[in-house]
């Protein structure tokens, strides 16, 4: 498994490095890295399908400004590698992903501590006006400190961790494994819940149920749902610009009289 571990961690390191250079924060998302990892390990289909579930699960986790309690990137790479290399059930791998992601996230504490210790070094370069050295130092810190450590952990995880995880899971009673499979089907809901909590307002909450109905009852394909959503959004946007009808005011008074 060392060879596969090397390929997976190296390619994902390069992807993350490019993502950091572009500042896009999108190539490191579960949907993308799971697809890449699946392709590298010879099972593109599993990679894409797991990527969908992982993206849903981590959707809410990463948007809480600044303080991210988990590392979705390594959680996804390791979960997909585990599912493909040990032929484990996808939902079990999914359930294992979050604990892994929160453990790997400890690396970020270390990374930020070290980078904060480098602050005086950068300040000295600035005070001496060393532009070239400053630029190089910034790029090197990005590659070596901000990016590389996570992929060393991922390499070790795939090369030496997965077998142990597999033999550990083999020891568990079957109901535990089945329970984890069921949990894997529910966990994306936590990601959605975090997200909902952020965008939920009384005014637009009803559209959440509309989306549910479009998909579950009307069985609309995704693009149709997007168009429906855009239609709703645009009409709300346009009608919000209309002045409120004047009739509303007297009827309101009637109500007050009635209740008095």
């Amino acid at each position, binding site marked *: 498994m060392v060879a596969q571990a090397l390929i997976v961690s190296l390619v994902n390191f390069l992807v993350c490095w490019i993502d950091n250079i572009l500042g896009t924060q999108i190539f490191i998302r579960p949907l993308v890295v799971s697809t890449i990892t699946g392709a590298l390990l010879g099972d593109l289909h599993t990679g*894409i399908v797991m990527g969908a579930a992982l993206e849903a699960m981590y959707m809410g986790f990463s948007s809480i400004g600044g303080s991210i309690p988990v590392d979705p990137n390594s959680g996804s790479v390791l979960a997909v590698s585990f599912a493909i290399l040990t032929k484990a059930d996808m939902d079990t791998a999914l359930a294992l992903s979050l604990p892994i992601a929160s453990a790997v996230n400890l690396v970020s504490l270390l990374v930020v501590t070290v980078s904060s210790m480098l602050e005086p070094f950068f300040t000295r370069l600035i005070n001496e006006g060393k532009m070239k050295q400053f630029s190089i130092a910034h790029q090197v810190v990005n590659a070596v400190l901000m990016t590389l450590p996570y992929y060393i952990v991922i390499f070790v995880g795939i090369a030496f961790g997965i077998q142990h995880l597999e033999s550990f899971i083999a020891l568990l009673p079957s109901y535990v494994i089945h329970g984890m499979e069921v949990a894997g089907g529910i966990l994306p*809901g936590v990601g959605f819940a975090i997200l909902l909590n952020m965008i939920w307002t009384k005014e637009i909450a009803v559209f959440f149920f509309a989306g549910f109905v479009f998909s579950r009852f009307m069985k609309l394909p995704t693009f149709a749902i997007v168009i429906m959503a855009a239609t709703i959004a645009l009409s709300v946007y346009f009608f919000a610009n209309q002045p409120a009808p004047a009739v509303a005011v007297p009827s309101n008074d009637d109500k007050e009289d009635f209740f008095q």
Partner: protein
Amino acid sequence: MKKMYNVDKEERKLLNRMIWRSGLLQGSFNMVRMQGFGYLYSLLPAIEHYYKDDKEKQIAAMQRSSSFYNSNIPFSTFVMGLNIAMEKQKSENYESIDDQTITSLKTSLMGPLAGIGDSFMFNTVRIIAAGIGVSLATQGNIFGPLLFLAIYLATFYLIKINFAYLGYTMGDSFIDKLFQGGLLKKVTQAASIIGIVMVGALVSQMVDVKILSEVKFGESVISFQSIFDSILPGLLGLLIVLGCRTCIKKGVKPLVLVLAIMLLCVLFAALGVV
């Protein structure tokens, strides 16, 4: 970019280098200056160009550009464009703008731009991209991840490039327009409606539980699942998500919620419920 903005070739070159370099805004993120060094890294070509004859002024510009900064990456090019315009003016007449003005403008813009930028990019654009990408990907379709990338990246660069030029050419009058007209609020509201519809659709596709327990009424056996399905297919998934949201709103940590769900699932599996 050529016709939309009145910017000469030299300036365009500087702005494009800033746009490219601003990707590394978080490159040496630390707790002291946060993205401060990344901000300086983005502005460096402009500083080098405008103060090329005076090392003292170069160093002073580097120092004021590396102060504390923390904001959304694509939206930051607006502040940087504005900052470059000010540095240009300062390089032409050094006394016209003092250091304080530049630093305070930067500091006053980063907060609102971080708020709008993060909620627009992560809570809206990325949800729409994920809504389309994830539902295609659940069927193993490679266009899932590809469209996810394409939608997000197109928006990302549209904002990043235009905001750099807008900041440089229009300055803070643009920000005033954006806030006063309430345009941005309306756009964000409209976009979050699309977002919440997509989340509703995704919940119906991705969150599901099957209840195995059955009740016996004399001869007939009724499964709980069929009762739930007859009320509303996918009802359990919907209730779980709404329940989770209530917990999070009440301050329960998401990781605690995840562990609780895993424990409950194992417990219910042991009892044969699920």
